[in-house]
């Protein structure tokens, strides 16, 4: 187990290095941030001073080396625009994004699993068919369009919910969170729902497919033959088996929820990392872009590792690190 985790972490650091090289080269190729950073009225001496200050006068490989040395000590460079450490800038915005993503996931799980179970147990009922039709909509409607629709309906027409910002926040363990205040909740609801919709549909479909498959298995028949109540057959025998793929997917999708949050954050002006990233790309603020991607990829890696560990807890047949088991992605 320990050996497995160490091997995974080593692989992951290689991924991180490769990614930072790519992003470095990519942003360099897009354009020169100097044009955006220096006052067009500045003279050549002033211009050269700024370039030297940002280290942009050196060749790219040397810039990367400087970045790499800094990264080893946890310093991912300073924002060109704000002249403060990029990591700090992102970490300051990250709680808002994570709160949004977590809420979206909670909505998707809380509604997705029961609805999927229902649709799987009663595939021919009206409710079952309605749930499935709804999930197809959730899959196919574009996120930004649904987001705009939500704003039109709840903010503009009905005036029930605010359409932008986080609302009142409270400080919990050093993080600002919205979900503990009524005002914050009303701000959180629409973006979280918007972000959840796709994952909700995914979880419904996964749960339904898993349920239908499990119901055909002999162990369900045997469980019924023992005289167990239907609630136990479904709630323990079926659910425990279908939780294995569901937990895997939920875990893997959590990373993409954070990534997708960029769209939702833009629509609802949610002050998270997504919005920061868009701004940084516009101003070619390379240190922030690189730092953002490094942090997101690290998050992905940690999540995948946690999922694998969870997987082995849920499925007694999986032992981590033994060859190419299902647990090793």
């Amino acid at each position: 187990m320990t050996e497995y985790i160490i091997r995974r972490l080593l692989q992951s650091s290689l991924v991180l290095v490769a990614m930072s090289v790519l992003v470095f080269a990519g942003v360099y190729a897009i354009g020169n941030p100097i044009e955006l950073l220096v006052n067009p009225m500045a003279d050549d001496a002033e211009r050269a001073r700024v370039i030297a200050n940002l280290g942009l006068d050196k060749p790219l490989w040397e810039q990367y080396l400087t970045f790499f040395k800094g990264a080893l000590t946890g310093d991912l460079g300073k924002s060109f625009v704000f002249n403060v450490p990029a990591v700090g800038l992102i970490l300051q915005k990250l709680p808002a994004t994570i709160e949004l993503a977590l809420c979206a996931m909670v909505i998707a799980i809380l509604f997705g699993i029961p609805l999927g179970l229902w649709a799987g147990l009663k595939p021919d009922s009206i409710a079952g068919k309605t749930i499935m039709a709804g999930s197809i909509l959730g899959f196919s409607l574009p996120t930004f369009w649904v987001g705009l629709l939500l704003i039109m309906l709840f903010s503009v027409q009905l005036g029930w919910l605010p359409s932008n910002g986080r609302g009142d926040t409270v400080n919990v363990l050093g993080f600002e969170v919205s979900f503990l205040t009524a005002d914050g909740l009303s701000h959180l609801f629409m973006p979280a729902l918007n972000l959840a919709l796709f994952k909700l549909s995914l979880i419904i479909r996964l749960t339904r497919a898993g349920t239908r498959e499990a119901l055909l298995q002999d162990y369900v028949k045997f469980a019924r033959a023992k005289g167990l109540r239907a609630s136990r057959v479904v709630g323990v025998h079926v659910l425990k088996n279908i939780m294995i793929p569901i937990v895997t997917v939920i875990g893997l999708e959590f990373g993409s929820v954070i990534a997708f949050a960029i769209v939702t954050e833009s629509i609802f002006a949610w002050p998270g990392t997504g919005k920061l990233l868009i701004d940084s790309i516009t101003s070619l603020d390379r240190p922030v872009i690189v730092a953002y991607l490094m942090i997101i990829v690290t998050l992905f890696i940690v999540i995948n590792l946690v999922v694998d560990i969870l997987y082995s807890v849920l499925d007694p047949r999986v032992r981590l690190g033994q060859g190419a088991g299902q647990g090793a992605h």
Partner: protein
Amino acid sequence: MRPVLEVSGLSTHFFTRAGVVKAVEDVSFALNAGEILGLVGESGSGKSMTGYSIMGLIDPPGKVVAGSIRLKGEELIGYDEARWQKIRGNRIAMIFQDPMMTLNPVLRIDTQMLEAVLAHHDVPREEALRRSREAMVKVGIPSPDERLLAYPHQFSGGMRQRVAIAIALLNKPDVIIADEPTTALDVTIQGQILFEMQKLCRESGTALIWITHDLSVIAGLADKVAVMYAGRIVETGTVDEVLDCSRHPYTRGLMCSVPACNPRGQPLKQIPGMTPSLLSLGAECAFRERCARATAQCDTMPAIGQDAHAVRCHHPLGAPT
């Protein structure tokens, strides 16, 4: 003595888009305490559906459309789900064919055993655990305390089937229905399990219905035999009567396709033709297309006799003509 289980006129049909599948039709038999009935027939003849009907486990589009199932005189047909739950696993238990599939792969053995006790008895966990341990010892599982904490994949096929049998025995049922429980196991293990099941049922007075398509298994195990063909029982009687003096042309054909019954060196005789589709059964004897003895009389389905050795045939073998 009143039989423990009396099944009479049982019919189970499946209402599919293609038509009504008469999977079980007019099946009757009776079982005394400690008695073993071998239910024999080829694939698709309705053996499993007979078992599921007795467990109340027929799911739509299937339905028990006629007949009566009496357990110690208590009529089970017409029971709602809640009452069936009190019967299942408690007074009638069932074991399935594939031990790799019947135990839930993600639940520990103790969970799967305890829930079977606790579903029917309001006893503390310790007592349920004690009964589980006892049942495991009974079916020959060594070091039960350790094994209870294991998961199914840590057991061999034979051991898993023993666990399933132990679960079936937990609540000391009146009847156990074993649906080909040894087919998936190798021959030595099969022999051991057969022997132990026989012993356990004799000792505890549990009646056993042993479903199989293998006549040679029945010979050493059962007291009575019922041979099924296309959903109906075509011949029933004691093992000696049915196997040694089979009277139905189908049973006789089955006997001749068993290696032990054939003189060495001669090819095994096969019954010519194919099993009829259960969808297209007409009014005639279902075996007619394959029967060498068929006459015009066989255009109508023969009734099964009322004797102890009963046969559903207009022209049974060995009858005075």
